[in-house]
Structure formats: structure tokens, C-alpha cells
């Protein structure tokens, strides 16, 4: 859950601005760059990306005596031993904040960075491309020209006028990819020894543990239904045209 949230935040933080930027600067180097990035994202072997990140950010930094990111797990055993964590919600990061357990919070945060980037990288390109194409669609319309003609600054035109109308497809994609990561990314979780559902499902399948498999499939189904519901609700928040009962 935490992993999915962080991965999604990473995706939105990078993907959305990049998509807007490449729509504004269509056919410029930025656009080609983001296109290449998007394609690289979809064609990167996730497990290899994870291993290479471990090699660079854990091993290489460490042997040079630089601050490095931890390579596996959710939180360091030693830190956990020294500062025991009282479980409130079951989410390590949230719990550590609630009980004001700063060392654990820092440690868990350091642990989540690499898996989150790894998980988010695949969907990043998709978000960028979708944002770009829907922005392009919107910016061709008359009211954007009108806004420009009124003499509004370009920034206002893009963020206030165009983006608001172009965000819907992006929300759909973010929802789907959030569901996917939430449903477990077995590859990332295996590489980073993350105690997540994907890893659990992979082991369950290997050992033909039927009850676990059924449970996993059921949970995944429920998650997808819920995510789609939330996406639909978000539509009506963003776009008054799809509001119900008006």
C-alpha cells in the first residue's frame, strides 16, 4: 500500500509535468526526449532496473563511503530493534509518524525510495504520453485561443484553462496503474525483498497454495473495482460536465 502510494506519487510528480511540457513544446527536443523516456519505461525489464539501482545506489555509493540507500527490505532490523515500533495501522511509515518514531520513519523512507521508483517507472511513460496527447487535443480548441487573445499569460492559459480539461484521461491511467501496483508487483517485490502481496502471490503460485491464490485474486478484483469507483468519483470532482444529478 505504502509502496503503491509512493510509486504513484513519483509517477505523477514526474509524468504529469513532463507530459504538459512536451505538449507545449510539441516536436521540440523535450517532446522527443519524453517520447524516448516513455518507450524506455515500457521496455525496461523491471527486475533488472531494480538490480542495477541496487548496484549503483547501494553498492557503488557505499564502497566509495558516500551515503547510500538500503538495498532490500522494508525497514532495517537493527533500527527496529533499537526503536521498537508500536503497530497502529500496520503501515510502517504512517505508524512511525503517528507514534513520533523518527529513526524508524527515516529508515523506512530510505527503504521505500528505490522500490517506489522501480515500480513507478513502467507507468511513468504512459502517464506522460496520455497527458501529452490530451493536452494537445485541448489546446487546439477555440477557448484556448480566446484565452490567449484576451492576453492572459501563457502559464495561466496552460494550467488554468487547458490542464483542467485535459486531466481526465490521465486520472484513468493513474488509477489503473495504482491498482496494478497495489495488486502487487511481484518483480519489484522479489528484487527488493519487499514483504508485499505480489511476492506472496508468486510464492503461493509456486507452491500451489490454492487458498492464498484465491484470496489474492479476490483482493485484486476488489481493489480494481474500488479504484475504478474512486476514478469515477474524481471525474465528477474535476469535470462538472459528468456530475451526477445536475
Amino acid at each position, binding site marked *: 500500500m505504502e509502496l503503491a502510494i509512493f510509486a504513484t506519487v513519483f509517477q505523477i510528480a514526474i509524468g504529469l509535468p513532463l507530459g504538459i511540457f512536451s505538449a507545449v513544446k510539441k516536436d521540440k527536443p523535450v517532446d522527443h526526449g519524453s517520447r524516448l523516456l516513455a518507450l524506455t519505461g515500457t*521496455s*525496461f525489464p523491471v527486475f533488472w532496473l531494480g538490480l*542495477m539501482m*541496487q*548496484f549503483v545506489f547501494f553498492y557503488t555509493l557505499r564502497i566509495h563511503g558516500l551515503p547510500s540507500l538500503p538495498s532490500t527490505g522494508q525497514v532495517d532490523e537493527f533500527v527496529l530493534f533499537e526503536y521498537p515500533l508500536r503497530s497502529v495501522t500496520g503501515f510502517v511509515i504512517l505508524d512511525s509518524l503517528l507514534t513520533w518514531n523518527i529513526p524508524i520513519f527515516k529508515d523506512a523512507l530510505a527503504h521505500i525510495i528505490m522500490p517506489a521508483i522501480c515500480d513507478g517507472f513502467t507507468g511513468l511513460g504512459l502517464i506522460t504520453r496520455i497527458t501529452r496527447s490530451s493536452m494537445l487535443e485541448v489546446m487546439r480548441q477555440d477557448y484556448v485561443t480566446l484565452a490567449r487573445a484576451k492576453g492572459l499569460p501563457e502559464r495561466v492559459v496552460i494550467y488554468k484553462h487547458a490542464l483542467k480539461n485535459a486531466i481526465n484521461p490521465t486520472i484513468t491511467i493513474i488509477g489503473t496503474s495504482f491498482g*496494478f501496483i497495489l495488486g*502487487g508487483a511481484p518483480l519489484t517485490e522479489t528484487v527488493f525483498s519487499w514483504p508485499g502481496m505480489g511476492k506472496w502471490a*508468486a510464492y503461493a503460485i509456486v507452491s500451489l497454495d490454492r487458498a492464498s491464490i484465491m484470496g489474492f485474486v479476490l483482493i485484486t478484483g476488489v481493489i480494481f473495482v474500488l479504484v475504478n469507483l474512486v476514478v469515477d468519483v474524481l471525474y465528477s470532482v474535476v469535470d462538472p460536465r459528468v456530475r451526477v444529478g445536475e
Partner: protein
Amino acid sequence: MKLKIPDKYDSQVRELRYSAYLLKHSALAVLGISIVAVVIVVAVAAPFIAPYGPEVRLWDQKLEPPSFQHLLGTDDRGGDIFSRILYGYRLDLAISGSVVIFAATMGTILGSVSGFVPRLDETLMRITDVFLAVPSLILAMAFGAVLGRTPTNLVFALALTWWPIYARLVRGQVLVEKQKLYVEAARASGGGAVRILFRHILPNSIYPILVNASIDLGAVILTTASLSFLGFGVEPGTAELGRMVADARSYVFTYPWVVGFPGLAILIASLAFNLFGDGIRDVLDPRLRR
């Protein structure tokens, strides 16, 4: 003056020429096509190019760094990584090629039936939905676990996961084409349902299938590698790219090239197919033409 009778294929040839012209002017697509060509040639000619066999073990030369003797170094069992990558391409391309062909055929048949026969539509589409709802990697893992660890079973597992996308695509196409006048004309002149579907509708909806297939090749290579990384599909020690990464995982910090090069090989292949498919889609889809 003699009038030229328009040839049946004239417009198609012109269309094709225009497409080729557009394709030539997209640098990324050209790059993709070139790499795809190189990968295919290398995979087909692996036995002639590779300096060592895929299963050759030089026990006295374990974990050697890249050198002239072993271009990309050797792995923990003394296998030449360069040769193993070439053979890995061979296996992975064979797998992903068969998966795409299987899945596209199955999806096309089911999708066209679903689009053409309203009575079966609802049933078939709900089955498709069930397949689409489960994450593809997990579904393929489940099939792979049930069927057993051989490359052939991996093909079946992946094909069983992949066909719904094609079924959806083809159904949509068939629904659109069905409304068109030429179908009515064919029906009016007494064409049977099967004939109309396979001689008239399908040939007219083949482009999206081909585009999707070319993009899918890359995705299937990636999924194949991921599955064998997780331990499905092929036996440990096989010259398969994902398996090579998995087998060498424990050496990632001490002997990075053993992990690095096979992974890079996967990235290159799947990126090339994606660039290629992206270029093709831009060219064949008139709406995306700039």
C-alpha cells in the same frame, strides 16, 4: 487519348509508398527497425556467430571480466555471456513470436465471432473481461505453474494471457466494419456469413492487428524474461535472458557484468520492438499523422 484504367491495387501501392516515405523520415522508427533487424539476424545466425555454444562450460574461466577472448565476460559456471545472449535472443524471439501468433489468431477468431454473432457477443466478452481483470503476469505465472516448466508451456501460458487484448481489438473493428456499405453489398449479392466475415470484414481490419502484434513482440519478450526471472518457464541454467539475470543475481555487487549484459540485451530488444511498433502505428494510423 487513351485513358488509363485504374488498377485495383493502384491506390494501395500509393498508400504503401507514402507510408514507407513517412517511416523513413522518423529517426526513432528507423533506429528501431535497424535494431530489430540486427536482433533477428543475430538470433537466427546464433550458431554461426557465437564463439561458444550455449551450454559450454569453461570451468577454469569462471566469472572473468570482459576481454577479447570473452567479449562480455563469463558467468559463474564459465559460460561465455556473449554467446549465451545470442542464444538467449534465439529462444526469446522464438517464444515471443509464437506467443504473438497464437494469441493474435485466437483473439482474432474469438473477437470476430463475438463482433459478428450478437448472440455470442455477451458471453465471449464477459470471458474476455475475466481474463483482462487479473494482472497478466500473475495469470501467466498461474498457467505456467500448472502446466510445468518448459518453453513450450511458457508459450501456451503467455498465449492464454494475451489473446483477450486481440479479441477486444478485433471485436471493435468488426463492429465498425459490419455497418459499412460494402458488407451490405456482399450480403445483398448472396454472400454467406462466414464468407462475409473472412473475405470482406477481416481483411479490412487487419492493420490494427498487425500494429498491435508488432508492439506486443517487445512486451512479450519482456514478460517472458520476467517470468523466467521469477522461476517460471525454463530450467535454471538455460541460455534465456531473464533466467541468466536470475541465475547471476547473487553476483550483482561483485561481478556486475554477469547481471548487467543479459539485462541490457533484454532492454535493447524490447526497446527496439517498441520503437518499431510506435513508428508503424504513427504511419498506419491516419489520425496520428502529422
